[in-house]
């Protein structure tokens, strides 16, 4: 026995973990899939060992699923869905509460098993993950209980597929299955082989007996994702993993039946200003990167004036961190296997070769898979590592001079997950918090999570949400929406779709009165001639020439997107009241020229009565969204936190909308109104057969709205769609057109992972309130940001 410095430097506290191994023994060290409330252990499958990530010891073997196992799981989920979705919310609430208790009873087993197989520090799993898993179930039980009341008008989607990549813990699964189960969906989870905790959870759920098949877990590589997505009945697939994997999945699933939700990347951001409590901010860095709380690395922005002081404190703090076996109760950081080690190693070596300074410290075993806390600084701004995602447990520090510069640097990456701002100056902290383009912002804290607060992202972090109301809507659709079916057209050539600019030739003699001069493209607040300098003719319902409209092309789209970007900041900063009054003014203008719109619609074969209704409804939509502009976002009160969490609804940015052919004026007005009310700048492609009413509205917009806020480009729809879908600086795209066009849009959106909304060739009832002006439009027209504001003196 030694007392003294020796002992204070090394404080191993081995944790007993027989219960984890004992559970593996009950499975004869051979894990299967958990499907329909029982274990499924098919013969003749390739087995993958489940290893202790630190010792490499073989803990159990896991069979890799094959297509038929996936089909069996989906079938079980589909059968269970018929019953589960029809239950009253109160019954589902009861079930979720029972599951929470089940977790409580077996928490020791859960945390030892999770720590054993993932290598994460047991105290994080025990003190944070397990209680949070219970809270999630309890909070969502309450949501299920009140579902009929608070979520009226929405119904569960159906079977949900959830694909987890190896770096995500079982908690990520809980964040997603809880809302799905609560609202009445059933789930099939595809986990990488060698992660038994999700299987254990499924077993616990299954052993409640009442509803086998609502939660099924299968082992298999992520490459089974497309097979899972294409099973009949699967309505949505949620994927958590790396950005590139997400991109591939997005492309593969274009045109498939299931909707795709992506939650990508794990890097976080921390902005440390000179007005910060630096010591506390350093603890924030520890939470964000040098602990087992986070999955990814950290980008750290430090104000120049406190750079030296902060670096000194960081290095001092790093030296006191302790790494080791996850089951050792006194470690700050465990290890996450050889793959994670190699990833970090590679990043650090590359950073070094690109000229960065690397500082490593801490009491961490110097063998793989252990990786010490690492601080990278002086990375040249243009080096590849600056753009690459920072892996755990690496922190990349760079300086900034002013808050404005910090925003520019922070928003200059393709990632949009989470960030924290450290400043004791309220005004500065809020300015940064509002300005950061990310899904979650913590002020003077990092990594707080609560079931009630939505978590998600934007840009390449994907636009899938979990937690809070947003998490619930992920698994709901407006009542009466038909189930999603695949509209896959196998022979669609993505390389050539909409590539060719159609040649415009004279279409025969101009009969009747000579049509007016061709309509131009409405870009930057005025009508402009198209870059191609050619026009296309629009025929009325009788086949007569009605008018010429401009033939827009790639350059016109570029100009329109640029104009929209210029107008966007001004529009965002307008108070909602001002936005509302402009929309109302537009509605009045529409009503004043009712007869002109009516006759334009009549020429396309719309009956007079219907045409009148369409104009009237269009004006009403503009007014309705104008009014709703004033009620955005709300406040959440989180139990453990003193102070509020703001759920902000921020504009997407530049939103491109390809309008449907049907209801040429009403659909145009409905989509435009929703987009503008939420603060977006818009590029629209109007109805192909009848663009005239939309262009007529542009004449009013030219005088009423700020230049560039709304841009309308006519021309070949496939070609324009291609240009918009492949544009990296368009933040979202709504497409109402053909099934093929929808498939292309989904495929092309993988470029910047913009959220897309497509109709897959199905017409929408724009004159119906639910489909034409329902809350679905509002949800899609803005993105959520959670702003945490802890208070205290």
């Amino acid at each position, binding site marked *: *026995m*030694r*007392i*003294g*410095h*020796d*002992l*204070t*430097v090394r*404080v*191993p*506290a*081995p*944790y007993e973990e027989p219960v984890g191994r004992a559970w593996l023994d009950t499975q004869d060290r051979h894990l299967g899939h958990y499907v329909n409330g029982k274990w499924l252990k098919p013969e003749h499958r390739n087995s993958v060992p489940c290893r202790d990530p630190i010792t490499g010891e073989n803990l159990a073997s896991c069979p890799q699923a094959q297509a038929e196992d996936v089909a069996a799981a989906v079938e079980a989920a589909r059968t269970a869905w018929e019953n589960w979705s029809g239950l009253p919310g109160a019954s589902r609430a009861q079930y979720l509460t029972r599951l929470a208790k089940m977790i409580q009873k077996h928490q020791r087993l859960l945390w030892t098993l999770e720590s054993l197989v993932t290598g994460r520090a047991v*105290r994080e799993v025990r*003190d944070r993950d397990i209680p949070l898993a219970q809270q999630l179930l309890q909070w969502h039980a309450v949501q299920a209980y009140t579902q009929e009341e608070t979520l009226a008008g929405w119904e569960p989607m159906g079977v949900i597929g959830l694909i987890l990549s190896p770096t995500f813990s079982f908690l990520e699964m809980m964040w997603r299955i809880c809302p799905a189960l609560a609202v009445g969906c059933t789930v099939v989870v595809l986990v990488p082989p060698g992660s038994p905790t999700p299987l254990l959870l499924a077993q616990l759920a299954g052993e409640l007996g009442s509803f086998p098949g609502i939660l099924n877990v299968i082992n298999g590589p992520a490459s089974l994702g497309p097979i899972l997505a294409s099973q009949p009945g699967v309505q949505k697939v949620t994927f958590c993993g790396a950005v590139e994997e997400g991109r591939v999945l997005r492309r593969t699933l274009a045109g498939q039946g299931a909707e795709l939700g992506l939650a990508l990347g794990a890097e976080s951001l921390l902005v440390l200003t000179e*007005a*910060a*409590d*630096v*010591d*506390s*901010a350093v*603890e*924030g860095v520890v939470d964000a990167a040098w602990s087992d709380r986070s999955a990814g690395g950290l980008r750290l922005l430090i104000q120049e004036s406190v750079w030296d002081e902060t670096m*000194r404190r960081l290095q*001092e703090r790093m*030296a*006191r961190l302790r790494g080791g076996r996850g089951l050792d*109760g*006194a470690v*700050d950081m465990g290890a996450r296997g050889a793959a994670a080690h190699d990833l970090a190693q590679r990043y650090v070596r590359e950073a070094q070769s690109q000229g960065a300074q690397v500082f490593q410290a801490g009491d961490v075993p110097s063998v793989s898979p252990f990786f010490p806390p690492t601080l990278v600084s002086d990375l040249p701004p243009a080096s590849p590592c600056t753009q690459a995602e920072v892996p755990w447990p690496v922190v990349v520090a760079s300086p900034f001079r002013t808050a404005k510069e910090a925003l520019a640097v922070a928003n200059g990456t393709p990632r949009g997950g989470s960030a924290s701002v*450290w400043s*004791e100056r309220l005004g500065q902290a809020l300015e940064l918090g509002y300005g950061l383009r990310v899904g979650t912002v913590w002020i*003077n*804290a990092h990594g707080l999570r609560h079931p009630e607060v939505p978590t998600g992202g934007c840009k390449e972090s994907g636009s899938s949400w979990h937690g809070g109301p947003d998490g619930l809507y992920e698994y709901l659709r407006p009542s009466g929406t038909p189930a999603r079916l695949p509209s896959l057209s196998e022979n669609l050539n993505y390389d050539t779709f909409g590539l060719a600019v159609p040649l415009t030739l004279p279409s025969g003699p101009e009969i009747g009165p000579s049509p007016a001069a061709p309509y131009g493209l409405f870009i930057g607040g005025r009508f402009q001639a198209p870059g191609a300098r050619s026009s296309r003719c629009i025929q009325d319902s009788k086949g007569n020439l009605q008018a010429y409209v401009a033939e827009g092309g790639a350059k016109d789209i570029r100009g329109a997107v640029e104009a929209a970007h210029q107008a966007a900041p001004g529009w965002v900063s307008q108070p909602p009241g001002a936005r509302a009054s402009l929309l109302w003014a537009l509605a009045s203008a529409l009503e004043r020229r009712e007869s002109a719109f009516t006759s334009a619609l009549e020429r396309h074969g719309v009956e007079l009565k219907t045409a009148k209704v369409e104009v009237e409804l269009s004006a009403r939509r503009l007014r309705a969204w104008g009014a709703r502009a004033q009620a955005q976002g709300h406040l959440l009160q989180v139990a453990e936190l*003193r*102070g509020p969490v703001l759920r902000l609804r921020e504009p997407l940015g530049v939103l491109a909308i390809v309008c449907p052919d049907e209801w040429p004026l009403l659909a145009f007005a409905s989509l435009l109104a929703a987009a503008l009310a939420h603060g977006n700048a818009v590029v629209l492609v109007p109805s192909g057969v009848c663009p005239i009413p939309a262009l007529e509205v542009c004449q009013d917009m030219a005088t009423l709205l700020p230049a560039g806020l709304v841009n309308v480009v006519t021309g070949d729809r496939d070609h324009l769609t291609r240009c918009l879908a492949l544009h990296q600086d368009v933040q979202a795209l709504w497409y109402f057109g053909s099934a093929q066009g929808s498939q292309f849009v989904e495929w092309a959106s993988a470029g910047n992972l913009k959220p897309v909304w497509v109709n897959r060739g199905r017409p929408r009832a724009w004159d119906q309130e639910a489909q034409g002006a329902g809350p679905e439009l509002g949800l899609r027209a803005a993105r959520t940001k959670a702003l945490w504001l*802890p*208070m*205290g*003196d």
Partner: protein
Amino acid sequence: MGGRIPTRGSRRGQRARGQRARGQRAGGGGQRARGAEGPGAEVAGPAPRGTGAGRARRSRGGGTQEGLGGGELGVEEPATAAVARAMSARNLGTELDLSWISKIQVNQPAVLRRAEQIQARRMVKKEWQAAWLLKAVTFIDLTTLSGDDTSSNVQRLCYKAKYPIREDLLKALNVHDKGLTTAAVCVYPARVCDAVKALKAAGSTIPVASVATGFPAGQTHLKTRLEEIRLAVEDGATEIDVVINRTLVLTGQWEGSDFIKTSTGKETVNATFPVAIVMLRAIRDFFWKTGNKIGFKPAGGIRSAKDSLAWLSLIKEELGDEWLTPELFRIGASTLLSDIERQIYHHVTGRYAAYHDLPMS
């Protein structure tokens, strides 16, 4: 002692603590002493304007850990080294620079979160736990501050300070020859004589600390407070815990000290982790700025062995191992020691001790 706080209910208390503790970062510019002058020398008194915050101390000549040499115990250095360190570590003070204070930012919610974390962070078990607990014993200022203290219970206290853990338990752990004692005994000025006598009789050189200067309120005249210190030193106290004059603190007139304490231990809220975190960070900043190491003493409410481990890990995490020495860290406690002994008993025997199994203090 260092900073009594006008607390009535925890929220108000926190606030006052925050302010006060922030102030401590200034380090202070007054004269105070860790008297290294040798036995018998006067403790340098409080500053002309007020009182020093925390503890003024005379050299103990390496006394605390008598016999704890040999490098096995972490606190181990031979006497000369201890003196040298005490001298080098002595806070000679700096010019009062109030801009240090005004620059300090403390984010209360973040500090509260850190405090919560730190208590759960280190789980030491088994023999490591036992070793940590023995180490905690060496930081204890074994204290009795009751109105009914007499020479007999002070004598018992001193004996306990000399033999904090039952001999057979120490033997079982093979540390019986390390001369394990508490860091000091702490009594009222009137009991210093008794304590010195008792310790001498027990053949121990454990230092006697005394609270002085109108403890616990500090609201007496400067003249009587100075006299109180002088008398306590005359009786043989080598360390004085001084209650600072909060009237001066609240008007921004700061003083320095060798040690700072969370509170007197006689408040409704005493040593709490959030306050300690702020104070420890102030100590580190002061060290970085001036090279002076200021000691830290949480007092009041630390009763369980588990608590003491949390405090050790707090010091370790915020200041590092170099502060884990009785020169720089003390725990003011009266009942803590018996709980530690109970835990050691359990570790050695595998059984839970009955009340009568362990000698009282």
